[in-house]
């Protein structure tokens, strides 16, 4: 297999050429750093994305709280992840970085709040 992967790790957007039969024998070129190598390999064998969304929250002036996973999760379960967070309902106050789920969808990634919301009477 031969393909070109545009790296999205940083804004440089290196175009990484990759030629492979298996993950072990892959030959890469065009990468600017080591992170690009692992991104390109992941992109070919197990593409991952950081998942961001929002969940319901009560007791705040806001109705929704933004959340994210602490590391990228398999791209193939993004839709499942979106469904999963629809069922979550929290109560303010909550702090930015607070863990909502420890092992989100068995990915070993945590689901955390990405904004501090004081309680309504704070």
């Amino acid at each position, binding site marked *: 297999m031969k393909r070109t992967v545009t790296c999205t790790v940083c804004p440089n957007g290196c175009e990484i050429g990759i030629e492979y039969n298996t993950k072990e024998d892959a030959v890469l070129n065009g990468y600017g750093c080591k992170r690009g190598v692992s991104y390109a390999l992941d992109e070919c064998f197990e593409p991952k994305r950081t998942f961001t969304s929002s969940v319901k929250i009560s007791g705040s002036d806001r109705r929704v709280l933004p959340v994210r996973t602490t590391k990228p999760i398999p*791209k193939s379960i993004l839709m499942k992840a979106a469904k999963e967070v629809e069922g979550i309902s929290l109560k303010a106050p909550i702090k*930015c970085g607070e863990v909502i789920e420890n092992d989100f969808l068995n990915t070993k990634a945590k689901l955390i709040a990405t*904004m501090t919301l004081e309680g309504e009477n704070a």
Partner: protein
Amino acid sequence: MKDCNYDIVVVGGGPAGLAAAISAKKNGAEKVVVIERENRLGGILKQCIHAGFGLQYFGEELTGPEYAERFSVLAKENGIDFLLNTTAIEINEKTLICVNTDGVINISFGALVLAMGCRERTRANLMIPGSRPAGIYTAGTAQKLINIYGHRIGKEVVILGSGDIGMIMARRLSLGGAKVKAVIEIMPYLAGLVRNKIQCLDDFDIPLMLSHTVVDINGIDRVESVTVAPVDENRRPVMEKVETISCDTLLLSVGLIPENELTRSADVTLSGITKGAVVNQFKQTDKPYIFACGNVLHVNDLVDHVSHESEDAGKFAALYALGKLEQNNEIPVTPGDGVRYVCPQRIACENADVDLYFRTLIPGRQTTLTVLDDSGILITKKLIRTTPGTIEKLTIPADKVKKIKGKIVVCAEHKEVCI
């Protein structure tokens, strides 16, 4: 609140205003205040809940709210004052006139930093014909409705314009169960960042229709469909080849305009290209006590750039207020072949590095970026690829700044044009 006096007044509590305020304080300004019209700090970052912020500035990937919170915590720790729910309405010499529920407040200042950000171009700006049904939003408004108010906005969506916010909303809507039928771009190339095309369009199999535009919006109460046509090389729609795409929602992601009404009240000279103030490398406008930074100065691609630029604005505003910013002769900086604009538009030849931020005109590969003065090439840089969606940066080192002759021109030459 009574009329008051500050060394530095910053208008806008988004990423630019916060970085400028913190930097002003760190560089010796004693009294610093940020004026913010909303009830929370953070500006547009509050609604940008996706990841990808901070890779350059913090060396880690954050979401917009997290990036904003880091700066608002720092600002509070540094003893900066805030006036929330307050709108700045006019600049009158060295006084800023504000209004909030207490009434009118006059704030006099040593230096003023403008950091009001930008707003979206609308359907009216594009003059798209058709009826006026519900279901037409700018991408940023849709983003606010979904990410801040928790609403759903539609089930079948067409997005006009391949700007970054539009692509990010394509992903957000897809994950929320909506069907995004197409992203339509009038230019023959992508307007936003390549990473967003990959993560937001390709990941969800959303077609990108380049060299196409929306020529009609159909539906009376609610959008029912849009009529789409390819465009010729002069960007005129080819009406013989129109097609109809059924949808209940149309998002517009067709560019941003710096919000400079306040700036005009002070008679500051604006650039016809960036639509922001004309500044030197200190981010100082032609009214020496007024500085500008962030998207009100020129629309940026990454908030990380905004933070760096705004730290400069805050620093030099503080030095000006303290009487420590020397005013030397300035030389013009102009865009040459292949470059749309350069910011700053003029530089004072000091003994310090000068950063030039600019956008190229068209996408290409194997690009050579060059900075010249009247005596020849000062610096060059080669890049694998450049696109107008990305801001490029070149730094003229201090030893070369001192020796600049005549004017500065920035050029970009592609070995291969990608249209």
